[in-house]
């Protein structure tokens, strides 16, 4: 990975989807010292552009504005894991020797719709004929996951809130974050209920934004950018879309499988990961992902988070970017955005948020209530 580029995440009334995507791609190409004419394929993650902004055919729509000429441009849709999936396929095409220079990106423009309309669009990542029809929003699905996790393992509201407090503290130090605001446990617990037991502070943000990376074969990487990151593993897995089809909703089989395969591909264990960006679309999702990826024991993700182990100075810093909670969650951009955040840490460019050990980072991108997962492990050059 020789180039990274992000826009700020936030609510940008004066920006459209295309201009956000172009800005991120141009930033990544500048970082990689690559020009548009050198790029051989473009992989764009986007969850719901057609619903949010009424535009289809998004990859050539963005690619044309960047200046890509005649190359394959394809949109990937796997709900909130759309750009993780785009990256996975981009990497595979380079690893297979098909292309030498590709761009993987993600973009979403969400804030031009009302919150109830956004909830309705995002609900399409679930099974619309069953859970959607019954009135399940994504907060509601994760609230049901949280309730079950609390019931089986004794996870508490305070432990959930500790994830939000930690991610807001990190995001407050991130100049590209959407909501740069420190919050207290008391505020988080007293937040407006969205779907019980989740309050507004347990839920990620509705954001606009884009992110992009440039990938080349490892043997060429130093020529483009001596500060490249080596892709040690990328894995993508799937599971049932409907939550009521899962045998146990207190874990995500797709996350477990993607993690196990990624650790095997990289020849590493969870203990060797220096930092991670986990898909905290809801506080409970970060807690369960920390268990599924082996950072915490099963059922112990709540106490683990509350102990401070996942803070910037903890044993495994999680979401030093502020996570989806504070950095923002432009859904289609999130997967590639996480990769950019990891690379900034690997390069030692994370400023106030910089972690002490930053040789190996892991990113986990989740789609829906666990029907898609992409896990990526990166190593500093």
């Amino acid at each position, binding site marked *: 990975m020789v180039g990274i580029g992000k826009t700020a995440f936030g609510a940008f009334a004066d920006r459209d989807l295309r201009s956000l995507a172009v800005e991120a791609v141009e930033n990544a190409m500048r970082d990689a010292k690559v020009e548009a004419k050198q790029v051989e394929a473009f992989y764009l993650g986007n969850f719901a552009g057609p619903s949010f902004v009424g535009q289809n055919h998004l990859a050539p729509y963005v690619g044309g504005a960047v200046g890509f000429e005649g190359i394959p441009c394809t949109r990937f849709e796997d709900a909130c894991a759309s750009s993780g999936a785009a990256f996975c396929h981009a990497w595979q095409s380079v690893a297979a020797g098909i292309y030498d220079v590709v761009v993987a990106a993600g973009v979403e423009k969400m804030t031009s719709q009302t919150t109830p*309309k956004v*909830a*309705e669009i995002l*609900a399409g990542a679930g099974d619309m004929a069953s859970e959607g029809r019954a009135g399940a929003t994504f907060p*509601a699905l994760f609230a049901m*996951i949280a309730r079950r996790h609390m019931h089986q393992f004794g996870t508490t509201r305070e432990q959930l809130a500790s994830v939000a407090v930690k991610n807001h503290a990190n995001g407050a130090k991130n100049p590209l974050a959407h909501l740069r605001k420190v919050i207290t446990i008391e505020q988080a617990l007293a937040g407006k209920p969205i*779907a019980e037991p989740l309050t507004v502070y347990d839920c990620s943000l509705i954001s606009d934004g884009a992110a992009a990376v440039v990938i080349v074969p490892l043997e060429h990487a130093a020529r483009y950018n001596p500060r490249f990151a080596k892709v040690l593993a990328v894995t993508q897995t799937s599971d049932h879309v409907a939550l009521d089809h899962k045998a146990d909703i207190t874990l995500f089989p797709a996350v477990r499988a993607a993690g196990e395969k990624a650790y095997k591909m990289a020849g590493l264990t969870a203990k060797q990961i220096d930092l991670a960006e986990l898909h905290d679309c809801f506080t409970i999702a970060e807690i369960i992902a920390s268990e599924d990826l082996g950072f915490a024991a099963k059922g112990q993700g709540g106490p683990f988070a509350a102990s401070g182990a996942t803070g910037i100075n903890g044993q495994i810093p999680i979401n030093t970017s502020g996570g989806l909670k504070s950095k923002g969650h432009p859904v289609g951009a999130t997967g590639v955005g996480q990769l950019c955040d990891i690379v900034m840490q690997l390069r030692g460019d994370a400023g106030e948020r910089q972690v002490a050990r930053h040789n190996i980072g892991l990113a986990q991108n989740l789609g829906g209530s666990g029907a898609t997962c992409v896990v990526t492990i990166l190593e500093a050059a």
Partner: protein
Amino acid sequence: MPARDGVVYTETIVHAAPEQYAADAPYQLAIIELDDGVRITGRILERAQIGDRVRFVEERNGVAYYRK
């Protein structure tokens, strides 16, 4: 005959509803484990908790409603 009644596997009370169900909020959404082991997502009239036994009341617009 397939089972109609069951036990609450998990539940939530939805306050922020999607646009088309805004008039219903707050409402209780749940996954019910029916007596034959099948799980379905439906709504609970009044309130129930995990482990509570619920019985099928009716189906409206393709959604199953339950009551304690």
